[in-house]
């Protein structure tokens, strides 16, 4: 070995996959699915190629906000076990590279969505990126225990962007689809926080379980689930919903409310005695909850297309 090869070994050069990991591909799948449903349930559907392109640009916009979030939160990510292997804390990509990629892809995705569909959808995508990076990551994540609620809003925009990309305007249906994700996020994460010893403490991120205690977190989970159930069923009575969605929403929300009620009635002693059985069951169910709701919306849209229930 010469000095040259030794020097080459020391300097790690990022691979394509490292840059792709900056875009948070797992989060992107939820963005793609909900944005696609938002577009397909709209009363007017653009050309299929335009629809696919719009979904792609929304996904790239979501990925860009993920890269900017990783750039800003690199210090927190390095402390927490769950995020320690991300590209920046593990040294595979520099913070400056993540910032450059995030900014470039943000501009690209907003401009392309505007050209492919309309500028209202592009403006909403730009606002979503701004909201996630500036309002959530930079401003409120480290200063308020309601950070989960605010972060949930950023994740709730994709179906609304999809709807606006198809129709050109915001409507009740798109607001209700937004509410579905927005109100689902807090119970989902707080249930996880109850049974996982979170390492957010070490990173200095305030979580409700720590700042307000576990009994307060249980009350919050029930309150959000009750409001969520009302909004989820309401969506079934709009033009975006249908019989499949309505039946699904009533059944799923009854089950979800029952789970939240169980969590509310329990204290830490009961939870520890059965190793957080109810909290874990509620969390597992919440993973299915969103997917099945949006799947049911899609099923109704397909049935409408073929004239069933029309």
């Amino acid at each position, binding site marked *: *070995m*010469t000095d*040259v*090869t030794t020097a*080459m*070994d020391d300097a790690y*050069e*990022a*691979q*394509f*996959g490292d*840059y*792709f990991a900056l875009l948070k591909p797992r989060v992107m799948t939820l963005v793609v699915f909900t944005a696609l449903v938002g577009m397909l349930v709209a009363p007017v559907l653009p*050309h299929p*190629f*335009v629809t696919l*392109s719009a979904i*792609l640009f929304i996904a790239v916009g979501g990925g860009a906000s993920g890269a900017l979030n990783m750039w800003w939160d690199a210090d927190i990510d390095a402390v927490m076990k769950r995020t320690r292997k991300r590209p920046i804390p593990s040294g595979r990509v520099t913070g400056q590279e993540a910032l450059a990629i995030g900014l470039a892809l943000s501009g690209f995705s907003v401009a392309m969505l505007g*050209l*492919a569909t309309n500028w209202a959808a592009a403006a909403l995508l730009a606002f979503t990126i701004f909201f996630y990076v500036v309002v959530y990551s930079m401003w409120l994540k480290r200063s308020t225990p309601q950070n989960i609620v605010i972060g949930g809003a950023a994740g709730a925009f994709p179906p609304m962007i999809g709807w606006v990309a198809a129709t050109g305007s915001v409507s009740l249906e798109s607001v209700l689809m937004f509410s579905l994700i927005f109100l689902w996020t807090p119970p989902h994460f707080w249930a996880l926080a109850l049974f996982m010893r979170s390492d957010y403490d070490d990173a200095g991120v305030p979580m409700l379980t720590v700042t307000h205690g576990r009994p307060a977190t249980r009350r919050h989970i029930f309150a959000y689930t009750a409001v969520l159930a009302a909004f989820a069923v309401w969506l079934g009575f709009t033009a975006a919903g249908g019989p499949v969605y309505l039946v699904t929403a009533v059944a799923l929300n009854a089950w979800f409310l029952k789970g939240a009620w169980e969590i509310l009635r329990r204290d830490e002693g009961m939870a520890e005695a059965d190793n957080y059985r109810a909290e874990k069951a509620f969390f597992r169910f919440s993973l299915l909850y969103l997917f099945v709701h949006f799947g049911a919306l899609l099923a109704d849209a397909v049935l409408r297309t073929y004239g069933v229930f029309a």
Partner: protein
Amino acid sequence: MIRAEHELHRRRRSRNFGVGLVLVALIGVVFGLTVVKVRQLGEMQAFDSVVRPEILPGERDEK
């Protein structure tokens, strides 16, 4: 000894290949969008891209 094929070159090749694929895909998307948008222009005269009032649906119905 300097090896001709270093691990670094392999990593760079994967990155260059990925970027190349993304660029080709981007060309495809922009080309496809252009074709769709141009086809949706409808009754527009090709030679100067100006709408001819007499072929617009509203004008035609009035006649």
